[in-house]
């Protein structure tokens, strides 16, 4: 296989903010002393007068963003997923979600691929937390191309958005002609024996898993689901109808995330088997991103093997 370009989606986030800053006057960016890691520092360097550091005080940052948005500004607030969706759940729920304010939450370092920092910094609960807030858009890009377009789309959308970006470098599989739209899934690869529905950095792993399954005579459809809420129900139901079984893949607790969102649609409208691959209700640990993904069953080889063990695949 040819060498694939790899970029962490947090890098894409920082670059996209800078692009947005060049095109618009009303975007302001805030961070809680992690601008180097979240890559909002890229925006800060270009537009220092529109960057407000909030110090290590995430709850206040969420509330300040709510206030700024009522003045007609479009704040993007950033810290690690653990300290935004996690630490500020209630501020996001009450000060941003309840009044439906135009605040964009750019949460980096989602999932276990955070790596060496360990479980305290590996947020595998953010989709569940953010999905449960009425009116909140929840997104997670699969690669650099999608991440950059997602930032632009979030700006154009009027209302609260949560975006999860990753720390680890991730293969770029989209061409520049790809068009991201909020609420739209993408069929990355056709197939009819089973549908893999993945989000974020798991999409690349799902594609690689589909390659392994193809060698074993299984035709797997791979669906990229960059918007977890609102979910593209049409694509999920087509997969249920045409493939008869669905496997969801996410770098998140299997409780409350993409898997359960898909289950909700399928069980209500077209019951088929849905098998959830993800972090199985456990905390992470220290290690390299690659080691962790392997240990938690989230690399392509694990995913393919797990699918082969399903009764319906035998």
């Amino acid at each position, binding site marked *: 296989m040819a060498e694939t370009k790899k970029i962490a989606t947090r890098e894409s986030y920082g670059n996209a903010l800078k692009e947005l800053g060049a095109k618009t006057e009303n975007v302001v960016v805030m961070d809680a002393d992690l601008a180097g890691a979240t890559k909002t520092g890229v925006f800060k360097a270009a537009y220092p007068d529109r960057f*407000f550091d*909030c110090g290590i*005080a995430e*709850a*206040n940052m969420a*509330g*300040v963003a*709510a206030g700024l948005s009522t003045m007609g*500004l479009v704040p993007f607030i950033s810290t690690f997923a653990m300290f935004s969706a996690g630490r500020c759940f209630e501020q996001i729920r009450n000060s941003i979600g309840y009044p439906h304010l135009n605040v964009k939450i750019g949460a980096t370092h989602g999932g276990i691929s955070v790596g060496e920092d360990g479980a305290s910094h590996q947020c595998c609960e953010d989709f569940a937390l953010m999905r449960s807030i009425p009116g909140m858009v929840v997104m997670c890009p699969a690669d650099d191309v999608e991440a950059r377009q997602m930032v632009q789309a979030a700006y154009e959308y009027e209302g609260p958005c949560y975006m999860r970006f990753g720390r680890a470098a991730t293969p770029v599989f989209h061409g520049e002609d790809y068009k991201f739209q909020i609420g739209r899934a993408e069929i990355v690869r056709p197939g009819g024996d089973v549908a893999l529905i993945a989000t974020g950095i798991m999409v690349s792993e799902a594609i690689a898993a589909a390659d392994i399954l193809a060698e074993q005579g299984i035709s797997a459809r791979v669906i990229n689901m960059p918007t977890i809420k609102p979910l593209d129900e049409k694509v999920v139901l087509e997969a249920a109808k045409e493939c008869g079984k669905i496997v969801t893949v996410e770098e998140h607790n299997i409780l409350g995330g993409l898997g359960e969102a898909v289950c909700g649609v399928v069980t209500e409208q077209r019951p088929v088997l849905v098998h959830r691959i993800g972090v199985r209700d456990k905390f992470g640990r220290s290690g390299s991103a690659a080691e962790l993904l392997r240990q938690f069953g989230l690399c392509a080889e694990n995913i393919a093997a797990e699918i082969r063990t399903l009764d319906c695949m035998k």
Partner: protein
Amino acid sequence: MNKERKKELQMYAVEVRELILRATNSSGTGHPGGSLSSADYFTYLYNEEIRVNPKEPKAPERDRFVLSKGHVAPALYAVLALKGYFPAEDLLTLRKIDSHLQGHPNMNTTPGVDMSTGSLGQGISAAAGMAKGAKHLGRDIHVYTLLGDGETGEGEVWEAVMFAAHYGLDNLCIAVDVNGLQIDGYTKEVMNVEPLDKKFEAFGCDVITVQGHDFCELEKAFQRFHGNKGSKKPTVILMKTIKGKGVSFMEDMAGWHGKAPNDEQLSQALKELEAERVKIREE
């Protein structure tokens, strides 16, 4: 402030208190204690201080008010009704199923409400964001927020104050209704928040302590706020107040934090307010 004006404001505050009591009585629930302790603040703010126009509740250049202690919504609603944002009879629908008057302020249902609040500690952050936004946009907008003294137990309050001082938000006026009581009892017993003056000063604010039921003192406090323009310091007004002020059996009683008066209690309270009106007239 001349004597006549002071009398007018005192009469207005009695009206605000009456509406608070009627609204909470009608709803059967709500928070009269802190609403009554802040009634004079609301009276002064909306009659003498804040630059707003009830006919244009969303005018971009208006001053902003954020009720960080959102549970005293009945006091805010009373003054908004008196100012003409909505009919006074709406107050009797407080907390009812079809009402726009939610238990805690909702900016999307009630005209004149600039921020949805209710979860303590969060309003002041939003107010700081508005003040920062006004500065960033180069607009001469004052942002006022009201906190409870018990509310200062929330860590977010101090995060917000630090932010306001760091960014030199001298357009932010933080008032604290220091009635010394919270739900479970006296603040000094539940969780001592004092000395609030030294704490706010240490965080970089200009602090003035006043008698919160005296309009001349409130006037002095807001003059101090205007004097701070250009100082890059947020202003904090610590208002010494009495919870339940104006109704003898509610005064300084934690039990009236979140309990509505029944019909008998309402009628007793209204008699006391009527006597207060007579007293103000005769003074």
